[in-house]
């Protein structure tokens, strides 16, 4: 969210909703159209949290919209329950419960599978409404006679039965919905949702239970849909079975895409455009059924050319006008360094990089199991087989607390596979991994990270659409809050120690210069440091670094080696790298892998002189 000031967006929304009835009728908006817009907008808030924020595109929201609406309408018409607001809320709760159950199934898969499954499930709801449950839902007739709300105040009773009073009623619910949604996206949930959208693999690796957060987003979306469905019945005085159709889900998707996903207000904007144009085409231009063709073409063009919808387009225009567009890509490396050789840069380093003495390394978080005194990591008999390929074979590997260990080996020696097994990204074919005296074999990457073992990746795995600070916040949140916690109304900055941890990591990896820059705009060397920073922000007691120096310029290497030296104090680290010159300078012991086996282990001095190692690296001449 752009504004840091509290309640500005909320206040503007309230003003907008109050002013709308005085302005929009001049543009031929009827009160009923405005009520429909607000209900669609409310429906869309939840969908936007699911799609725009979490990246889960569901084509089945009609199931929850219909369920909420039918439950509320059933209570109000057939049961004869008198309180409209309570019935609508009961409908919302029912939709949330259904959402939870459906989410358990739909979230077994992601991507297009998820889209297909949601379509299929929504279709089932449509048929169930029509046939097996028609006794309760009125089948193809729907449920007529949904009453309008009344509020007895003792001395008088407020009847909400005129068009404008109904608009006020719906606008009030929209405001409540948007206030809660803004709270959610500013809570740890908001950041974690975006992390899952950008890079679910890394979100899990820094210690978030991705599945549970997705499920939470799914239930939130179902709750909003259920609430909107209940209000739809009130709006029309009748609960239409069409709420369950694929068209309903499709219209929601289209409106959100038109308005702009990931903005919360996109669906409201989209609904305004859609409903206004549909009235305009049908009533003013008399296009009849052709209006949908025109809107379909408009939608396709919009998806092709305006990726982020109307709100995104307006934002881009605003940025362009403010001159921010040009500032996005700025060359980072000073020209003075471009022609400098490694040696010269190294010599210049003490002067050129007389940065503040590195801040003391952040202590690894004290976890309950820290009283274990044996080796921090002990892997025995680790074997990994990919079909016929033996990537690792019977590896025995022990690392003591506080040690700085290097792993080298020719390409294809199985170094990365070993790291993947140690962090439980892939299960070993056989063998056992003990971390701080605990058997972690067969655990998943999230739980292992929560125990204090994580790694930085060989190929950057960042949350590229988020800023540097947000990236580190994601990792630090996992350490502060555990893998899942239902604190969706709590503000991120109120979490104890979080800001300090993020700021500290920023200093540690020397990214304080532009913490609010999006990661995609960073030069490679800084991305690489952020990659290490993400792992560091988890406060691991054992940190694995997979080729932290890979692909770096000589200057960037020197910075990175400095960084690694500073973070190694009071921490156990295992580093894979091909830059032996830097690695031997850093580490205390080296393990050499060859063809999936441990070739030898020893101090850098022993390794340098070892014939077998020289043999392993063609020609026996060290690259240094």
């Amino acid at each position: 969210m752009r504004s840091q000031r509290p309640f500005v967006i909320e206040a503007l929304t309230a003003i907008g909703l109050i002013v709308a009835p005085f302005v929009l009728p001049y543009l031929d908006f009827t009160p009923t159209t405005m009520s429909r817009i607000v209900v669609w907008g409310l429906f869309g808030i939840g969908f936007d949290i699911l799609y725009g924020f979490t990246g889960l595109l569901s084509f089945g929201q009609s199931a929850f919209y219909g369920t909420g609406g039918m439950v509320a309408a059933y209570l109000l018409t057939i049961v004869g329950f008198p309180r409209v607001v309570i019935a609508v809320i009961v409908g919302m709760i029912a939709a949330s419960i259904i959402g939870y159950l459906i989410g358990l199934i739909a979230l077994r898969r992601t991507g297009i599978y998820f889209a297909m499954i949601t379509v299929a499930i929504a279709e089932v709801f449509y048929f169930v409404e029509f046939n097996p449950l028609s006794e309760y839902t009125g089948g193809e007739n729907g449920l007529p006679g949904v009453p309008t709300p009344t509020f007895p105040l003792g001395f008088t009773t407020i009847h909400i039965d005129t068009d404008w009073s109904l608009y006020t009623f719906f606008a009030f619910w929209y405001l409540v919905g948007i206030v809660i949604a803004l709270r959610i996206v500013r809570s740890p949930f908001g950041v974690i949702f975006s992390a899952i959208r950008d890079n679910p693999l890394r979100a899990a690796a820094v210690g978030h239970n991705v599945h549970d957060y997705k499920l939470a987003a799914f239930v939130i979306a179902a709750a909003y849909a259920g609430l909107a469905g209940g209000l739809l019945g009130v709006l029309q005085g009748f609960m239409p079975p069409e709420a369950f159709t694929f068209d309903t889900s499709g219209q929601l998707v289209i409106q959100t895409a038109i308005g702009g996903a990931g903005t919360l207000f996109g669906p409201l904007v989209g609904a305004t455009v859609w409903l206004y144009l549909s009235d305009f085409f049908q009533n003013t231009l008399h296009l009849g059924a052709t209006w949908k063709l025109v809107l379909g073409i408009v939608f396709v063009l919009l998806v092709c050319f305006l990726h982020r919808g109307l709100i995104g387009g307006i934002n881009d225009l605003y940025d362009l006008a403010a001159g921010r567009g040009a500032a996005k890509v700025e060359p980072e490396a000073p020209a003075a360094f471009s022609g400098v050789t490694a040696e010269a840069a190294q010599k210049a380093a003490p002067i050129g990089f007389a940065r503040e003495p590195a801040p003391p390394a952040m202590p690894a978080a004290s976890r309950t199991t820290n009283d274990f005194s044996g080796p921090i990591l002990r892997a025995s008999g680790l074997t990994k087989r990919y079909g016929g390929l033996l990537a690792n074979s019977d590896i025995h590997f022990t690392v003591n607390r506080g040690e700085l260990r290097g792993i080298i080996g020719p390409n294809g020696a199985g170094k990365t596979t070993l790291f993947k097994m140690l962090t439980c990204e892939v299960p070993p074919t056989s063998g056992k991994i003990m971390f701080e005296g605990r058997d972690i074999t067969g655990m998943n990457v999230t739980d292992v990270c929560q125990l204090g073992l994580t790694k930085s990746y060989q190929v950057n795995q960042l949350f590229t659409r988020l800023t540097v600070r947000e990236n580190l916040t994601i990792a630090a949140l996992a350490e502060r809050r555990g893998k899942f916690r239902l604190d969706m109304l709590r503000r991120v900055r109120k979490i104890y120690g979080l800001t300090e941890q993020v700021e500290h990591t920023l200093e540690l990896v020397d990214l304080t210069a532009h913490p609010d820059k999006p990661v995609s705009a960073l030069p490679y060397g800084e991305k690489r440091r952020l990659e290490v920073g993400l792992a560091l922000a988890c406060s691991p007691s054992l940190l694995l670094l997979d080729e932290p120096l890979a692909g770096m310029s000589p200057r960037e290497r020197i910075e990175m080696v400095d960084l690694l030296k500073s973070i190694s104090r009071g921490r156990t680290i295992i580093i894979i790298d091909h830059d032996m010159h830097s690695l031997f300078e850093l580490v205390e012991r080296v393990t050499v892998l060859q063809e999936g086996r441990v070739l030898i282990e020893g101090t850098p001095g022993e390794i340098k002189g070892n014939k077998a190692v020289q043999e392993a690296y063609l020609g026996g001449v060290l690259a240094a």
Partner: protein
Amino acid sequence: MINWPNFVSQVFNGVVLGALLALISSGLTIIYGTLGVLNLAHGAMFMLGGYAGWVAYTYTSSFIVAVIAGSLFVMLVGVVMERVIIRHFYSRPPEDQLLVTFGIGIVFVETVRFLFGSLTKTVPPPSGLVGITPLGFMFYPTYRLALLGIVAVALMALYIALYRTRIGMIVRAGIEDSVMVGSLGIDVYKVFMLVFGIGAMAAGFTGIVNAPVVSIAPDVGEAILVQTFVVIVIGGVGSFPGAVLGGFIAGEIISITSMLNPGYSYVMLFVAMTLVLVLRPYGLLGTAGRE
């Protein structure tokens, strides 16, 4: 009490429906497997095939011409669609691909509605295939029997094209790893265009050969699309044999449940899909790691 003759005929209906679903799902799944794009306009292409065939039939009164016209027209639509729009979406997030194909589907449906109205159209079966055929133990509509043969031939042709030709080998290699195929010096874009055309043609062909059984309407593709999704989830995304197996399973489930209570056919389909997702998340014949 189960009525046995009725049961047997429903099993037969299930086989026919299954064959149709297998063919249309194969089209969707090879497009997805090769291009990585889930074409939400696939149902609309099924519908387009029916309409193109119907137009050809009204002019020529020949069923054969109708089938050829329906198939080729939809193939052309697919090729143009890939060339003009889809190609620009390969590097965009999968969600954008879903949005754009969904939008294109709407445009197809609404264009047909604009041109031909919302009323249903029928294409009669070819003169030699009307009436019913005695099978000894029951009587069965002749065209449906023939349809089974027609679709089996089409599936076999698709199989041969995919597994017994050079271009098919490239397509299957593309399903495994399209980047690698590109780096072997093969113009992947040409392959993509061809695959999109073939996948679209499978939908269009199914649309026209099914027209004598179920009359066509602009929104006839929607239900088919949903069933296709279930077929693919059951069979495994990107797997041609999976689409065939899933098609027959879905066909039987729909037919047999319809005999007992039509309202529950989708529920049973859903139950089957859920079972597969729980027991074999990547589909019966799918491979792990493909999303």
